[in-house]
C-alpha cells in the first residue's frame, strides 16, 4: 500500500506519521540538503518501506508533488504545513492558525478530493480543543470524502476521526517544544526526595479563576501547600494577559511573596526568553518540577482533549493532580480504545473546591498523604507505561486505513 506524505522529509516526521510500524530499511537522516544545516528542508523525495500488522507499506515523502497519483493514499498535516512555511514554530495557539482555512486550504483540498475521492486525509491537531470556530468551519466546508483527523472529542461529524496515537506523538515529533526531554528526565527526577512543599499550584498566566484558587490555597496558611507565579503574568507587552494581571498582580504577590515569583528573565544563562511554548516547557522542566512532590495543574481541556500540561507530567513520571474533574477522561478514552484497564484517579470525583480543601487536610497528615501520593504515583506510572505501549504498537491512521480496506473488500 502506498502512502504519499505531502511534507518535506525528516526522521521525526516519519515517526510522527508512522509510529508503531516495523521499518524494512534504515530511516534516513542526512541528505545533501541538510547535512550542514539540520533545519534545512530535505528537498529529495524519500521513500521508506515498512510493515504494519503484516501489511506492506511504502511511504513517500514528496512535499507538494504527486497529488495527482491515484495509486495510493495521501496525507497532509495542517500544522506541519505551517511549520514548513515558517508561519509558526509549534502546534500551540497561534494567530495564524485557522486564518487561511476558508480561502486557501479548504478549497484546495476539496479540489484535490475531487480526483482522489476518499484517499485523502488531513490532520488538524492544534492542541486547542476548546476552539468554537475552526472545527465547525471544517465540518461544514470540507469535502466529506476527506478524512479529517482532529484532536478533540467533540463535534466529531461526517468523515472525521480521532487518532489518539497521532495526538500523543504530535507532542513529541517534531520536537518543537522540548517535550521529548521530559521522557528522559524521568530517569533523574525519581532521585529527588527533598521537596520544599508537598503541593504546588504553578500559575503562568494570571486569571480571575486562578487568582481565586490561589487565594483559597493561601487562606489555609498551610506551609505544605504552595503557589508560584511566573513573571510572564506581569509582561506588559501582552494585552491579552495584562488586563487580568493588572487587576490581581499586587494582591497575589502579597499572598505568595517574592520567593514564589518565578522570574523567567534571569541574567545570562538563566534568561528563559520569551513566552514561546518551547521556552516555557524547558523552564518548567528544569525549574518547576523541583518545587513540590505534586503539582496541582490547571489544564482546561476538561476531558475533550489534552495539552502539554498533563502530558509533560506523565512523560516525566511526575505526580500531578488536575484541578478539573474530567481532565483525565481523555486518557481513559485512549485506554478504553485499546482495551487497557482503566485506573481511577484518586481524587477525580471531587470538584475543584472540594479537591483543594481535601488536599489541604490530607497534606497535614503524613500517613494519609503518603497513601495519596502512592496512589497518584501509581496512576501516573501506569498511564505512562500504558500510553507508551499503545504509542509503540498502534497507529490510529493506519488502523483506520486497514479497516477501510477490509470493509471495501467486504463490499466488493
Amino acid at each position, binding site marked *: 500500500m502506498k502512502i504519499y506524505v505531502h511534507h518535506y522529509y525528516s526522521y521525526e516526521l516519519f515517526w510522527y506519521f508512522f509510529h508503531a510500524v516495523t521499518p524494512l530499511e534504515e530511516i534516513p537522516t542526512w541528505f545533501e540538503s541538510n547535512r550542514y544545516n539540520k533545519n534545512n528542508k530535505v528537498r529529495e523525495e524519500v521513500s521508506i518501506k515498512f510493515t504494519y500488522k503484516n501489511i506492506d507499506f511504502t511511504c513517500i515523502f514528496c512535499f507538494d508533488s504527486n497529488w495527482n497519483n491515484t495509486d495510493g493514499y495521501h496525507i497532509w498535516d495542517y500544522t506541519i504545513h505551517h511549520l514548513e512555511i515558517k508561519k509558526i514554530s509549534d502546534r500551540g495557539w497561534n494567530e495564524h492558525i485557522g486564518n487561511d482555512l476558508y480561502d486557501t486550504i479548504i478549497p484546495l483540498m476539496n479540489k484535490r478530493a475531487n480526483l482522489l475521492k476518499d484517499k485523502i486525509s488531513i490532520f488538524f491537531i492544534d492542541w486547542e480543543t476548546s476552539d468554537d470556530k475552526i472545527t465547525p468551519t471544517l465540518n461544514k466546508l470540507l469535502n466529506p470524502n476527506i478524512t479529517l483527523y482532529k484532536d478533540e472529542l467533540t463535534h466529531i461529524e461526517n468523515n472525521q476521526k480521532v487518532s489518539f496515537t497521532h495526538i500523543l506523538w504530535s507532542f513529541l515529533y517534531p520536537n518543537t517544544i522540548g517535550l521529548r526531554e521530559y521522557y528522559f528526565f524521568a530517569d533523574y527526577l525519581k532521585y529527588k526526595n527533598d521537596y520544599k512543599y508537598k503541593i504546588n499550584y504553578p500559575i503562568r498566566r494570571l486569571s480571575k479563576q486562578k487568582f481565586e484558587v490561589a487565594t483559597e490555597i493561601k487562606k489555609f496558611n498551610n506551609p505544605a501547600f504552595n503557589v508560584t507565579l511566573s513573571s510572564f503574568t506581569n509582561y506588559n507587552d501582552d494585552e491579552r494577559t495584562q488586563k487580568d494581571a493588572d487587576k490581581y498582580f499586587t494582591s497575589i504577590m502579597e499572598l505568595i511573596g517574592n520567593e514564589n515569583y518565578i522570574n523567567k528573565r534571569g541574567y545570562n*544563562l538563566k534568561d528563559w526568553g520569551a513566552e514561546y511554548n518551547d521556552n516555557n516547557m524547558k523552564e518548567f522542566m528544569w525549574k518547576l518540577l523541583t518545587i513540590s512532590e505534586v503539582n496541582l495543574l490547571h489544564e482546561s481541556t476538561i476531558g475533550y482533549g489534552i495539552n502539554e500540561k498533563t502530558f509533560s507530567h506523565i512523560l516525566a513520571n511526575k505526580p500531578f493532580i488536575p484541578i478539573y474533574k474530567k481532565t483525565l477522561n481523555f486518557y481513559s478514552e485512549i485506554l478504553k480504545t485499546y482495551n487497557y484497564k482503566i485506573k481511577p484517579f484518586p481524587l477525580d470525583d471531587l470538584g475543584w473546591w472540594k479537591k483543594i480543601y481535601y488536599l489541604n487536610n490530607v497534606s497535614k497528615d503524613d500517613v494519609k498523604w503518603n497513601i495519596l501520593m502512592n496512589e497518584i504515583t501509581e496512576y501516573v506510572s501506569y498511564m505512562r507505561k500504558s500510553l507508551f505501549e499503545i504509542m509503540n504498537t498502534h497507529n490510529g491512521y493506519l488502523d483506520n486505513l486497514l479497516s477501510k480496506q477490509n470493509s471495501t473488500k467486504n463490499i466488493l
Partner: protein
Amino acid sequence: MKIYVHHKYTYELFWYFFHGVKVDPTKVPVVTEQNRYQVKIWNSNIHSIKAKYKGTDLDIKFVNDRFWEDESAHHIFDVTINSLQNGLSSDRMFILPTMEGFKNDWIPFLNGLKYKVRKNVHISWISWEGFNLDEEGIDVSKLLKEDINLYNDNVTNPDRTKYIFSQSFMSFIFPDTTATREYYFFYDWLKLKTEYEYKLLYPVRRVYDSKLYIANGIKKDLNENDTLITYSSFTDSNHYIWKHQYEKDYNEFLKFPNLKRLEKRGYNIEDFGGEWMKNNMEEGMWKMFGLAEVNLIHENPMTQCFSEKTICHILAGKLFLDVHYRTIQKIHKVIDLLGYDIPEYPLPEYDDITDIMPWLRIQMDDEVKWKELTSKLNEWLEYIRSCFLETVKTKNSLLDEIFPKLPKNII
C-alpha cells in the same frame, strides 16, 4: 560607547556578546512583531539596548548589515553567527561552508572599509575546532587587513588573533544550537544520582587508532568489572567517512569484553536521529552521563581550544578525566589567565592516561582510595565550574579588548 553588532537580533545573541554587563534582563527585548508567532525568526529590525560595563555606558545596537561606514562606533561581527543567520550551518562546527561564506562574501567587503572604520572592526571566529586563523587553507588572518581586530577560541595563537574566553565559553550556551545550555541545569539533577554501575566510562563515538590504543590500555590495566567502554552505532554507519579506513581497528575494538554499543537510532522516542551536534549532545546527556561515576573523555591533545566535550562535563558537574593531561593544563592555563589560583589536580601528571593506569587501578580497587580520589576530583571540578560561571557573569573578554582602544577623554 557606541557598539554596532552586525547581526540580526535575538536575546540569545545579546547574552552571547554582552554577558557580564550591567543590564536589567527584562529590558533585553524578546518578542517583536517579526518573531511574535515564530520563535526561530532572527529579527532584522534595529534593536537598541543600553547597558553598563566597568562604569562605561554602552549604547548597543543590533543593526544587521547597516551602518558599516560609521567611524564613531565599534563594529562587531561573528563569523559563525553570520553562517547561522544565512542558513549555511545549524551549529558552530562545520568549517567549510562557514569559511567559504566568510572568504567570498565578507573579507573583500571588510578590507574595503576605510582605515578609521577597520581599526574598530572586531571579527570573532569561535569554531570549537582549534585551527589557527593563519593556517594554510584557512588564511583568514593573512587575508584580512592587519588593522582589523581578530579573535578566536584558541587559548594560544601563533598570529595576531586574540583569545576571548568569555565569548568562547558563552558560545556553547547562546545561541543554544547544540543543547549544551541544558547541561548547566542538568547539574542540579545529576548530583542526585549517587549509584553507578561502573566507576569509569570510556565513551567512544567514532572508533579509530588512538581510541583503540586507549581501549587496549584499559583492557590491559583496569578491572573490567569497574570499567565500561561504549561505542556509538554511528561508527559503523555510512555517514562515518573514515569507516573503511579504520575497519581493522573497529574489528579489533569489537573484541573488548567490557563493551557496550549505544544505539543512536532507537525506536520511536529513543531515536536520536542524525549526526548533528545537537542530537549528539542530547544523546550524550540522557544516555551516557548515568553510566559511570567518572567519564574518561578523549579530547584532541593538539588543539588549543575547548570542545563541547569538556564544557558539557564542566557545566553538568560530571566528573571526568581526560586521555591527555594537556587538556587539564589547558584548563589551568585559562584559570590562570582569568586571574584565579590554579587548583590542585588530584591525578599525577601523565602524557596519555595509559601512563598512569596501574596507579588508577590501585585507586579503583580500593574503595577508600577511590572515594578520596573522586571527592578531590569533584572539588577540583566545582572550583573550575564556579570560576568559569563567575567570569561570564562579571566579565566580558571582547569588551575588555575593545575598551583600551578608546581615547582617554571618552573613558
